[in-house]
């Protein structure tokens, strides 16, 4: 088992193409940036060059979407080798992915599909996380997914699954507060019970994002500012977990950088005064 990851209580943003110029040509007041690992797991060319330049200015967290630790199939060794090469070059602050599955056989949905929270799935997920951490030579973080349906087959709830997974593998947790909110609304469980149920000493990073409300469900679209309910849940998380690396995720309808920095300032303010009512 790898040693626990050190804490890092900074504030960051996801690096997106729309803001490359800002990050390369101006000082941006963030403590770290997070990139989608797969976008830079390429052989060469401009993406890798840009990432190297950004890395010279900021700590970088690598956040993946394709590891698929919840698949019945073993992790893709070619994928892990490519990720390892990127990790070795970038020396990231964190390497993370999701508690989800995408692949079965030769099929890859390229979606973060929900894992049934069964004992069988827990054994398989833990085995795959062990293999991934071994291949990368370091502990990883795994993010709670946004979920739109409940599998009929469940032996435990999501936070029990995450807590046992972290305890057995030594991995850290990436707490996506928006996903907690979205899943709790969609599946009708208690978001506060989730926060209380995950191990505080394993949470190393927090994601904040916006979602879309439809007539039937909430969808994790990352195309809007963080809403008041999610800010309130973030405040609860800060009270439970203390200062944690926090970042805003925005993947669609991306505004100019100052708008995201302003949103990040709300998070900073809350972290300074976790029990005041600054933003909600």
């Amino acid at each position, binding site marked *: 088992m790898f040693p626990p990851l050190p804490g890092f209580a900074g504030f960051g943003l996801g690096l997106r193409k729309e803001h490359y110029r800002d990050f390369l040509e101006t000082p941006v007041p963030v403590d770290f940036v997070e990139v989608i690992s797969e976008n830079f797991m390429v052989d060469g*060319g401009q993406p890798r060059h840009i990432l190297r330049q950004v890395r010279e200015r900021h700590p970088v967290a690598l956040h993946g979407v394709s590891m698929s630790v919840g698949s*019945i199939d073993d992790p893709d060794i070619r994928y892990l080798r490519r990720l390892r090469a990127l990790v070795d070059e970038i020396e990231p602050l964190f390497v993370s992915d999701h508690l989800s599955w995408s692949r079965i056989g030769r099929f890859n949905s390229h979606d973060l599909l929900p*894992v049934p929270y069964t004992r*069988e799935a827990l054994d*398989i997920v833990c085995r795959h996380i062990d293999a991934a951490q071994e291949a990368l030579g370091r502990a990883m973080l795994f993010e709670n997914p946004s979920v739109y*349906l409940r599998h009929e087959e469940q032996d435990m709830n999501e936070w029990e699954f995450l807590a046992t997974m972290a305890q057995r593998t030594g991995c850290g947790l990436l707490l996506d507060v928006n996903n907690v909110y979205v899943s709790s609304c969609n599946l009708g469980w208690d978001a506060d019970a989730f926060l209380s149920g995950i191990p505080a000493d394993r949470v190393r990073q927090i994601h904040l994002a916006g979602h879309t409300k439809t007539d039937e469900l909430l969808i994790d679209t990352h195309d809007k500012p963080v809403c008041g309910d999610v800010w309130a849940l973030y405040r609860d998380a800060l009270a439970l977990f203390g200062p944690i690396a926090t970042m805003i995720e925005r993947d669609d309808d991306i505004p100019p950088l100052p708008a995201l920095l302003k949103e990040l300032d709300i998070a900073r303010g809350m972290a300074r005064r976790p029990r005041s009512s600054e933003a909600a």
Partner: protein
Amino acid sequence: MTLAAVQQRMRERLTRSGPDDHHATQTPGYRIYRNHYRAQLVHCLETSYPMLSGWLGPDEFLQAAIQYIDDHPPHAWTLDAYGATFQSTLQDRYPHNPDIHELAWIEWSLSESFVAMDAPTSSPGLLGELDWEAVRLRLAPSVRLCKATTNAMALWHAWNSAAALPESEMLATAGGLIIWREDFICRLKQLDAIEHAALLLLHDDSRFAGLCAALVEHLGETPGVRRAGELLAGWLHMGIVHCEC
């Protein structure tokens, strides 16, 4: 139900084409996953083939995309690779439109070249110092080559510069197309048939002597050797070939 069975069932429900009336997939949650699966793949194809999606029109492109998605479920670890064989569906749907086939090749090859491995370069000034017996001519990893029979290059350049598109037409003489990356910018150039064949030859025979022999066979002794020298100087200048000793 085992994890394997759960995942196999979900795969079948996600990829089933046409309307799905199974009661389990009528839940809002399943609809979100199913819609996201298909919408994401359509978006991926639109992003990989931006000119063709506009040129064919949204409805026609969507029909081609749906056919491709039904016939080719994704399997690579990266979504960026999904459109790699979309050209086969376009050839299927438009068997008599070589302009569409060549435009599809251009768009896909540009995206591949953009992230191909970085390569060393050789200065044309080094030519005088080379051991011509030992030197090997290596194509840059970003180089992509194909046969050209239409004015697809002119069509693509017009689209890329937002100019009026010319009419599609066949070339008087077939030649080749080359795509490569110069620093971080991808380039597209039309080649005559001799240069195209000479570059293809380097895949199998990287010796300068082999290049000379092929060109001598086509052009005769003196013009063949002269053309080999001119081509090599041009390739080194463009950065599509480097010399390995």
